């Protein structure tokens, strides 16, 4: 073992003498290192001061960040270098004592709990049971106001929307949709009249209105009268996770959800064509009234949006 190696054997800090080489810096040329660190500290201090100045004059955010970040970075690098190269190089060792106590200590501890506690409880089983019962009731009862006051029971808009027989379809600005408004192949998001600016209208009632052709269009059996003059409407809530089915692929006539890429065939009852959505988008039955406005025949025949336990 060489001279240098002997000094590399770890020793305990408490046994180290003042002139021990392990207390010397690790750097070969401490003077040079000190100079370099001094430079990083000066740069760091200047940048941090620059941060103060740029804050004072309300400089651009990137200047604030550059001065703050650069300043902290240089101060940090200098400090790490100081610790690494100029402080006692070690290595030092610390003894690790077993955490476990002697068996007699353990037994005494266990005895204190088991014998004292067990004795008390065993002798007074009735009291223990009654107290436990009382606390149990309290913990269940305490949950009621905590949970119940958090929100209403799941009803209402979970199962039906604001579309009713005769409701006018309006766009986001509240304008009623006339049967001449859309050219074939175009699409618009509609709401039941009066809900277009409400959270509920946007989150629950949102519906896509597509003009597929110029003739009455039937998507599926039993829906012969639902698509007058080629207008068909589907709930805009994806049946996967409720994102708005916001994209329309005109050539393939697919409605696409940008969240998880579910695709629905607009010409065939919005049956899911691709992706994770499990169910077709519910279709809204439409009719065109005497003045040519597009209105709903009724609400959706099923809950809109993603699946849940109570959904039949």
């Amino acid at each position, binding site marked *: 073992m060489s001279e240098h190696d002997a000094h590399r054997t770890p020793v305990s800090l408490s046994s180290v003498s003042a002139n021990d080489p392990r207390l010397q810096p690790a750097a070969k040329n401490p003077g040079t290192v000190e100079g370099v660190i001094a430079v990083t500290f000066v740069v760091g201090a200047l940048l941090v001061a620059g941060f103060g100045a740029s804050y004072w004059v309300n400089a651009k955010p990137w200047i604030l960040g550059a001065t703050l970040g650069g300043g902290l970075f240089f101060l940090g690098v200098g400090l790490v270098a100081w610790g690494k190269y100029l402080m006692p190089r070690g290595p030092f060792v*610390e003894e690790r004592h077993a955490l476990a106590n002697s068996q007699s200590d353990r037994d005494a501890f266990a005895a204190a709990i088991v014998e004292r506690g067990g004795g008390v409880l065993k002798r007074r089983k009735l009291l223990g049971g009654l107290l436990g019962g009382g606390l149990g009731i309290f913990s269940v009862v305490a949950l009621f106001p905590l949970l119940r006051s958090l929100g209403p029971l799941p009803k209402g808009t979970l199962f039906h929307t604001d579309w009713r027989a005769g409701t006018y379809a309006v766009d986001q600005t509240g304008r009623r949709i006339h049967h001449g408004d859309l050219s074939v192949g175009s699409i618009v998001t509609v709401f039941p009249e009066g809900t277009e600016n409400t959270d509920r209208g946007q989150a629950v009632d949102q519906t896509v209105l597509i003009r597929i052709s110029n003739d009455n269009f039937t998507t599926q059996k039993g829906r012969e009268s639902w698509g007058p003059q080629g207008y068909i409407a589907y709930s805009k809530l994806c049946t996967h996770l409720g994102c708005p089915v916001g994209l329309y692929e005109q050539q393939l006539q697919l409605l696409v959800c940008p969240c998880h890429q579910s695709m629905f065939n607009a010409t065939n009852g919005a049956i899911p064509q691709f992706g994770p959505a499990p169910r077709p988008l519910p279709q809204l039955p439409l009719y065109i009234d005497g003045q040519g406005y597009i209105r709903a025949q009724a609400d959706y025949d099923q809950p809109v949006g993603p699946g849940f336990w109570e959904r039949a």
Partner: protein
Amino acid sequence: MSDGATTKRQQKAALGPYGKVGKALNELDDRLGVARGGRTFMDKIFPDHWSFMLGEIALYSFVILLVTGVFLTLYFVPSSAIVTYHGSYLPLDGQKVTQAFESTVNLSFAVRGGLLMRQMHHWACDIFVGAIVVHMARVFFTGAFRKPRELNWTLGVTLLILAIANGFLGYSLPDDLVSGTGIRIAYSIMLSIPVVGTYLAFFVFGGNFPGTAVIPRFFILHVLIVPLIIIALVSAHLFLLVRQKHTQFPGEGRTEKNVVGSPMFPVFMAKTTGFLFIVGGVTALLGAFAQINPIWQFGPYDAARISYAVQPDWYMGFLDGALRIWPSWSFMAFGHTIPLEVTIPAVVLPGILFNIAFAWPALERRLTKDHEIHHLLDRPSERPRRTAAGASVLTLLAMLFIASSTDVIANFFHLSLNTVLLMMRILVIVTPILAYPVTYLICKELQGVKGGGKRKTPNLVTRTEEGEYLASATPPYRDDRPHEIEPAPVPIFIEPEPDEPTESGVRTVER
């Protein structure tokens, strides 16, 4: 004059050899009795290996989160009330937005330093979760979680979950189009849980989505309740670390009964404080030069609008990916629906993953029948089965993460979305299965490599007087010399270290 000097010297002598500091410490010890414990703490030894720094990154990015977060709470208004925006960002002028959105835009543009603080906060969060994951990988692959540190591993996994949860809560607060879509998805995931889902969702959101309760509720969770729990658990995490002392890699002079490294004061304190500054500095530089979450470009949330390529923060990516590639198998019967296409990837899958993480120390104890106390770390190649299992899970997570950008991949490589989806479905299953044997074999090979994992030493080339060149090997570096590991019983599951091969070029590979 001389009188004054004497008095000064006397006063100094009366203070004792350590001056005013010593006196103050004496006063403190009179009252709290901290001298002996304090000395022990100052002498606490920290191993010098770089991998021990990963946890520090997590800790310091959390400190930055607290500091920048306090700044943000001074300006953020957690309210869903609708206001008309008339701020300094003109493209949004006149739009109806929530107060949460308005105040976030205002604190970005009108508050001095606000944008920097917001971006630092967001970056620090991404770094926080990332550092926890990398730190956890270090602890896993080196076996630092083994007895007696199982409890600290459990605390760590809990902290990861809390960090992810709080990250999501904070990401949701500005009420912009992208985060609002994220909340919408979180709502639908709650809704998907059988039997109690609708109640859970209605109670969390105070009614059907979106309601007006969710922003204030998320706010108080994000700024008070979850951070308090995180602070408590981090304190416990560090307390256990001090109580149980650090683990260390084996090396000359390092045994199961000691810790070798640098003392707490002043060496480690200087290094770690410097490192805090470096982490803060890098975060500030990211905040200055790398834009993150520009909510004014996304616009305010509107449940009927959506934007293309919506993706969550990186740590939610694996969930989003799982949701994208899981097939559309819904269960509908007996008047009930179980949306398995949501419940399995978004509830069951993370449940299984985190439960495996919680259970791993006990699981490994059972498999290896190793109930010994371990303070010396494993090299990952020494424990091929554990390393292979970890690599397999990480591969699965990486594939799920990639699957969260199927649409971007399809666009970028001009592939059909169907092809990408099918490809990801195959990769998610195949690659983790392949990762196991491949990692296992690599570990086995590494075990057989002579001097594997050790630094190469230079060859000394000498020229004789006759002009003949001779090469001779120099001795290995000190830390790389063969060392005695405490003869702890080696269980059957864990393979013993192979013997050093004797001839050069001959590898002994145990199979």
